[in-house]
């Protein structure tokens, strides 16, 4: 029991350092501001120009926006440690690598969720002006959170493979965008290839959430891709790239 609490405290120390860095860093606020600006645009175009009280524009545009924003959140996590040499401090702590990895991923995921929080104002506004399907909105947010987790894990992997933040960002964005594009390519592909693209891309899995359906297969998809990229990151950390 004592050992369990000790591990939890150590995990808390690792995670809170990452979170503190995000909340003290102007870069994190800039990324969040950019995300809110574009998401606000996605919401307000149908709202003001087409006079539609709907959050569909936001939920449809948010996944693509997140493929850009989440790698910007995660790019620093390992790349900066390797570049500055602090990876030697971190990876020589008496803490298993998986715990360090989870602490960093957890912190990035918290930041992504924190960025999603202010967007709650969009469905609340719509709810004041007209009818809104509360279940669908909740499911859509759950889908966005799961997507945020998956993209965070991909971004962390990209950061673990790079030695500077720009490379980490570009690699992370390309990987995330590949998962986005796989879903968009489905109409142009047929047979097995089309099925494979539909499964790999996150588009189809997000559609179910947008309809208000939280299918366990979709949840499993996001969790398994996240686990896969966490494992890739762990392999990378075990190889200890020299700074």
């Amino acid at each position, binding site marked *: 029991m004592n050992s369990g609490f*000790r591990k939890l*405290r*150590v995990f*808390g*120390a*690792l995670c809170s*350092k990452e979170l503190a*860095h995000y909340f*003290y*860093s102007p870069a994190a606020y800039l990324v969040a501001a950019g995300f809110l600006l574009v998401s606000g645009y996605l919401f307000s175009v149908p709202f003001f120009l087409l006079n539609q009280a709907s959050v569909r524009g936001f939920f449809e545009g948010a996944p693509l926006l997140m493929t850009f924003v989440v790698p910007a959140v995660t790019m620093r996590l390992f790349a900066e440690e390797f570049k*500055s*040499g*602090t*990876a*030697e*401090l971190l*990876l*020589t*702590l*008496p*803490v*298993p690598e998986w715990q360090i990895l989870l602490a960093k991923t957890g912190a990035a995921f918290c930041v992504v969720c924190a960025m999603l929080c202010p967007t709650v104002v969009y469905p609340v506004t719509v709810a004041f002006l007209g009818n809104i399907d509360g279940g669908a909105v909740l499911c859509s947010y759950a889908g966005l959170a799961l997507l945020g987790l998956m993209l965070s894990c991909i971004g962390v992997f990209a950061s673990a493979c790079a030695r500077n933040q720009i490379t980490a960002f570009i690699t992370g964005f390309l990987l995330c965008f590949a998962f986005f594009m796989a879903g968009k390519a489905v109409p142009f592909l047929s047979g097995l290839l089309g099925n494979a693209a539909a499964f790999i891309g996150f588009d189809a899995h997000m559609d179910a959430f947008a309809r208000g359906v939280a299918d366990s297969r979709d949840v499993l998809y996001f969790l398994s891709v996240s686990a896969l990229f966490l494992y890739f990151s762990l392999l990378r950390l075990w190889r*200890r790239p020299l700074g």
Partner: protein
Amino acid sequence: MIKVENLSRSYGSVKALDSVSFTASVGQITAFLGPNGAGKTTAFKILSGYLAQDSGSVFIGGMDASLHPLQCRAMTGYLPENNPLYEDMEVCEFLVWGGAARGLCGQALASALDRVVQTCGLAPAAGKPIGALSKGFRQRVGIANALIHSPKILLLDEPSSGLDPNQAAELRGLIRNLSHETAVLLSTHILSEAQALCDKVVLINRGVIAVQGTPQELARAKAPVLIAVFEQEAPASVQEAIAGLEGVSAVERDREAEDIVLRIYCVQGADLRGEVFALAARSGWPLLELKRERDWLEAMFRELTA
């Protein structure tokens, strides 16, 4: 406390360490010497648990570091080369994080923080951001972080690099104090520092240990060299005359010096100061200075790593 057996590590085709073996004990300061690229930092990275060896074993506190990596890391404090630190954190915030990440909490963490702040003389910098500190204070912060969990082994990779002579002297005092309860392994380029501070010297070159032992053992193993300084009026034949003494293996003259400065290489175990003095007195040559070369480690370093 540290036992290294046949440690080898390669980077591609380059062999950074080749069957390196040595030991270091608590209460002892061991200097790891060698030219750049000799394999010192690779050895430290392996001992700290950052890198894995290709072959060989590292035992820390009797435990195999490959089988019990976390327990071994818990016993080790490590100051990496170039002393990487989180620049945006404040000194105390960083040390508290370092302690908490090693499982310290509550009163234990508070007293560990007080101890390292006091030991490393960090009180004037405690609330400052690390990025704003001088090189000397940064070095102290790095050492404090390595000490926060009271490790049994302290690995210091070039701890005095970039420090001014006063800061380096203070750091040497600190390391000497720490060595009473800790096995200190330090790598340095400053040979006089190693000679003055260390109880054991391990000289490594191209990944292989060239020589190791206590300074006394190494000094005994090194053939003595005398430095003799004669006034300019002494005849040029003084060099030949001294070379003819029994027990002298070679004599070199420093051509750049104003006076006649001779380096007299003696055979193993010979102390020819009396003979040289007697010869000078007999011949009437004005002998200004006669001494044994003290920086024997530098001579040995050059000899073994050239």
